[in-house]
């Protein structure tokens, strides 16, 4: 403790770190499972694993968000309408820019339906027209019917603006922790306790220059 006091910069950084973790841990949104089983909805909360310098992560997240031009560049899959491609707990990386080509048929996209706050990841199967106002229809690979039923009343097609990103990268299973945390809220308390404990220990450990949080969660709400 004393040694870290001798290094006020380090102490301040660790304090800031703890504050960040506290605030973000409480920001993790509890997302209810979708009532429609047919849709693969996703957690719009990121999950990042890092070994050091965890306080940088919110910035990394924002950076990724800006680079991908998506409010939620990493999402976690919640249900099975895209099986076997995507299963529960899989992590998807999204890209929301049309640098070379329009968002096209065959791409797997995450979209928001007007008035519903559950992002859904499905594949585009029809596209009429080009550009911003092309009419897009989506369907889950594992579903028999297309998504017309899932859309808002009177909405037959999606437009580009409803889409928050196309899936470009995939990591299996890693996102399961966020699902666990949102379905069993007490785990959050446990984790927070462990984190606090680690912090305490770390404060006492003078020779450790880098703060070592392996699991770090940061909640994010799509607008």
């Amino acid at each position, binding site marked *: 403790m004393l040694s870290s006091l001798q290094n006020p910069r380090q102490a301040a950084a660790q304090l800031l770190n703890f504050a960040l973790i506290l605030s973000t841990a409480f920001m993790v949104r509890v997302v209810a499972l979708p009532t429609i089983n047919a849709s693969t909805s996703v957690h719009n909360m990121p999950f990042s*694993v890092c*070994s*050091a310098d965890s306080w940088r992560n919110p910035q990394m997240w924002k950076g990724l968000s800006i680079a991908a031009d998506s409010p939620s560049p990493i999402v976690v899959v919640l249900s099975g309408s895209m*099986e*076997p*491609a995507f*299963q529960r707990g899989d992590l998807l990386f999204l890209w929301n820019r049309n640098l070379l080509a329009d968002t*096209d*048929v*065959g*791409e*797997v996209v995450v979209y928001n339906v007007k008035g519903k706050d559950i992002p859904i990841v499905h*594949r585009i*199967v*029809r*596209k*009429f*027209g*080009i550009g911003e106002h092309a*009419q897009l229809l989506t*369907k889950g*690979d*594992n579903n*028999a*019917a*297309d998504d*017309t*039923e899932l859309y808002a009343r009177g909405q*037959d*097609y999606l437009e580009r603006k409803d889409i928050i990103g196309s*899936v*470009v*990268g*995939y*990591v*299996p299973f890693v996102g399961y922790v966020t699902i666990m945390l949102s379905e069993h809220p007490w785990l959050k308390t446990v984790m927070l306790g462990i984190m606090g*404990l*680690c912090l305490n*220990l770390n404060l006492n*450990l003078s*020779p*450790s220059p880098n703060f*070592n949080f*392996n699991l770090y969660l940061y909640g994010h709400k799509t607008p």
Partner: protein
Amino acid sequence: MYNSLTRIQNVFGFFTTIAFVVAAIIAASDFTAPRTPSASIKPTNVQVVKGRPHYYSSKKEEYAIIKFSLDADLSSLFTWNTKQLFVYVTAEWPSTSSSSSNQTNKAVIWDAIITSPSSDHLANIGPATLKKLRKSAGGKSIDPSRGKLSLKNQRPKYQITHPSGKVANTDDVTLHVHYNVQPWVGMLTWNQDVDMALWKRMAAGISKAFELPAVKKKDEPKAKSKY
């Protein structure tokens, strides 16, 4: 100074680092496997019917049923990192309205999920079919026969419609074969228009342009999709 908690922390940190490095290497290994897909497709029977394309359709509209024959060899897309291959056939046609000349329409008429032997257990099929599928791989983890398709006069899974409700007498319709490789970890990839290093573009895969005929009088009961 080092207690067990810090050690657990360090071990877990090391584990996650190693796991991510290994995952990155596996994902990068995709680029070392050559891809030489080829496909040929042709429409065999095209008809346009006026009716309700789905049971939940609120209005009657014209829809086209395009039967096709497809021969494809996509076996080179199966590697140790392939989880599934999503093959889909689209019908594409330019817009009929003269005002917007460059508008195109695209609709998937048929698709198939081809699982890799490593993900057979995830497929949405019954136990008997699963057993058959497992047997077809013959215990191999990479089964080159998986990517070979030969369909004769295949009925489409999805009928084509258009928001305007009109599809009859459309000119210049082409069928295209596409694929999407879903990896176990890494980047999702689609068929490409140009060669990129070891990944070649799909040979053929586009049908000759054809025409959707005029609306057919309904003398037979409504064509029901098998799926």
